[in-house]
């Protein structure tokens, strides 16, 4: 398991290669990369700054990965989230999940992203032509996380 919070960019290819290096039991690696968009809430975004809660962030991400490991048989998980100022097109977050078969890798990757969006203490502030604004949490993100716990 690899969990990193960093300001530098990451390399998806290198991260995926590192997961399978030296082992032959992995049959599937599913990955997700989230990028900074140039448009949000109908107006142009020229840059964004990601703030986080050092200490709690790493702990919250580890908890998400533990939860995924409890639900599925996973062989390795990598989560990298960037902080600081990012420009449109820049990668923000990487989640990669290795397992024996594709089903668990796909599902666990989506699960980790859905929970990351609602549980991990990151906040985005956007720069627009009208000034700066904090991004508001979306109800659709809560719904995406909630569907993993049907009552």
């Amino acid at each position, binding site marked *: 398991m690899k969990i990193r919070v960093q300001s530098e960019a990451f390399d998806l290819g290198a991260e995926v290669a590192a997961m399978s290096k030296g082992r032959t039991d992995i049959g599937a690696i599913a990955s997700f990369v*989230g990028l900074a968009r140039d448009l949000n809430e109908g107006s142009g975004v020229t840059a964004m700054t*990601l*703030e*986080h*809660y050092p*200490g*709690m962030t790493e*702990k*919250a991400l580890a908890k998400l990965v533990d939860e995924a490991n409890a639900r599925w048989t996973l062989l390795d998980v990598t989560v990298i*989230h960037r902080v600081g100022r990012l420009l449109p097109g820049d990668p*923000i*977050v990487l989640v990669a999940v290795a397992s024996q078969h594709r089903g668990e890798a796909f599902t666990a990757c989506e699960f980790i*992203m859905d929970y*990351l*969006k*609602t*549980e*991990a*203490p*990151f*906040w*985005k*502030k956007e720069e627009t032509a009208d000034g700066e604004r*904090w*991004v*508001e*949490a979306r109800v659709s993100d809560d719904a995406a996380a909630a569907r993993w716990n049907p009552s």
Partner: protein
Amino acid sequence: MKLRILYFARLRECFGVAEETLDFAGATAADLVVHLQARGGVWAEELAAGRAFRVAVNQDIVALDTALPDHAEVALFPPVTGG
């Protein structure tokens, strides 16, 4: 009890403070919120009933009825928006 309180994102900006230590006589996270609301102004406004904010105690998000341990690290912040 003694608490270390951290504020993040929009709340840190609105309150104009990132961190403070507080001698606190209450028992729960809800008591702390009431104590902070009583400061008035932006505190009353941002922490009013119905406003969305989260409370973490020792780096875990908790419900408001959670008891605060002495020397706890308490954080108040808006709903998260990473990813």
